[in-house]
């Protein structure tokens, strides 16, 4: 989201930096403390899978739609997975209607990367006839209310929706696919967890809210899997991070990710 009020933000940032120097945040959280996370699945009956996630006041809805289609020529034996995000005009006074903004595209691509690279979805199980027909899994995310850290909220919603998604089973007969009445789960295993941190002055804070995002110098998102491996990351904003702080962020994301993985697991069976 664009910064809209330089004067207010500069004053708030000065105040924030003072509090951060004492290891605290303006909303009372510790530096590595995320806001309350609520995950509700199965909220859209017409979707194959869905989830509503609230992260503090940030609210997003993810819906999974599964169909069949043709695979990409370079991955003929793998299904298709597409994550898309839209920051709705109803989500913030600063959001605008129209084609996806640069921010929305980055958001979707970073979340997509975490899900894809963690190999959460077994793409080879989504293949029906190599080079011809595969399952196509679309996960669309609607941002309903913006209060910072859309990256993590979107990621949790996508993962929870995929974990609870059921798709029509297709049979292959005489080199043709046939729809059956059976429903099977989307083949998922790992739980990738995205942890976003903001650098404000010298401090790294986990799960920045809107106010902190307006004041932040730099943002970094790191996604980890169940084994504590790092599978995706993205640095954002026109500022820098020191090499030492990158490694610090990696350790934080592994630690905080473990905690949040439990929440996602409990909420999505």
């Amino acid at each position: 989201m664009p910064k809209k009020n330089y004067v207010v933000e500069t004053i708030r940032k000065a105040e924030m930096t003072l509090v951060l120097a004492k290891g605290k945040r303006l909303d009372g959280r510790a530096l590595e403390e995320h806001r309350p996370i609520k995950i509700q699945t199965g909220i859209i009956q017409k979707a194959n899978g869905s989830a509503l996630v609230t992260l503090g006041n940030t609210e997003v809805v993810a819906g999974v739609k599964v169909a069949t289609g043709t695979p990409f020529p370079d991955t003929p034996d793998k299904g298709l997975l597409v994550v898309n995000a839209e920051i709705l005009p109803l989500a913030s006074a600063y959001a605008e209607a129209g084609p996806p903004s640069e921010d929305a595209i980055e958001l979707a691509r970073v979340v997509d990367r975490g899900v894809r690279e963690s190999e959460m979805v077994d793409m080879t199980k989504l293949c029906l006839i190599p080079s011809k027909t595969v399952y196509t899994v679309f996960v669309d995310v609607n941002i309903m209310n913006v209060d910072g850290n859309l990256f993590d909220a979107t990621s949790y919603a996508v993962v929870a929706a995929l974990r609870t998604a059921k798709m029509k089973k297709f049979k292959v007969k005489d080199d043709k696919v046939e729809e059956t009445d059976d429903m099977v789960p989307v083949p998922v295993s790992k739980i990738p967890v995205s942890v976003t941190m903001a650098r404000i002055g010298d401090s790294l804070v986990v799960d920045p809210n809107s106010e902190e995002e307006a004041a932040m110098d730099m943002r970094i998102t790191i996604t980890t899997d169940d084994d504590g491996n790092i599978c995706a990351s993205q640095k954002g904003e026109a500022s820098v991070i020191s090499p030492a702080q990158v490694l610090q962020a990696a350790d934080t994301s592994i630690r905080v990710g473990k905690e949040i993985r439990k929440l996602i697991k409990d909420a999505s069976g």
Partner: protein
Amino acid sequence: MLLLKAEKKQLINSKGIRLDGRKFDELRPIKLEVGVLKNADGSAYIEWGKNKIMAAVYGPKEVHPKHQVLPDRALVRSRYHMAPFSVDERKNPAPSRREIEISKVIREALEPAIVVEDYPRTAIEVWVEVLQSDGGSRVAGITASSLALADAGINMRDMVVGCSCGIIEDTVVADLDDTEDKEGSGDMPVAIMPNLNQVTLLQVDGIYTRENFQKAFELAIEKDKQVYAMQREALTKKYFGEGVSTSGEEE
């Protein structure tokens, strides 16, 4: 499916030699040239492996549309674009989601180096055109863009230089080419300001243990510094002629 697996080439052999004959930490050949476009305020051309990329800078110039003016600093714009003929299958010339994201991270990688406060109410535009793509095009683009910014005479805190590292067959390697990028299991482009020792671009995909993450990240920074020596040499050559020693850092 078994057949497909058998067909997959081994990207690095038991002696640690990669498909194109490089060692794990060896860069592809890099050629840099500064001041190659007549109209642009600054420009640079880079060949990095099979990558052929042109970067041009226009500005500081008037901001259009006016409502985008920033009262206290310059507005930095960038576009990363791939020519339709730059890849195996023709690429639709319309900007893809990938290109839009890369344009954004390139802008965010370069802006920390530009003294934007020196140019309030202006725009500085960086155009990156990929004529041929071969893995690592965003870091090659950043390396060329930074030269083009310097060539345009824009005040800068440092140069920005990029290189990517990644994982192939469980080994951390530097500077992935096209095949290694597509068939390997991870890519990590890193751009830094070498004198200030600050990271301005970091993207990661693949599966890295904590140990491999640090290994790849630190190798990328080391390689960035190697490319930086070439950047200095290219700038010196343009402005002081050949045969002038830069700092003895060059390889």
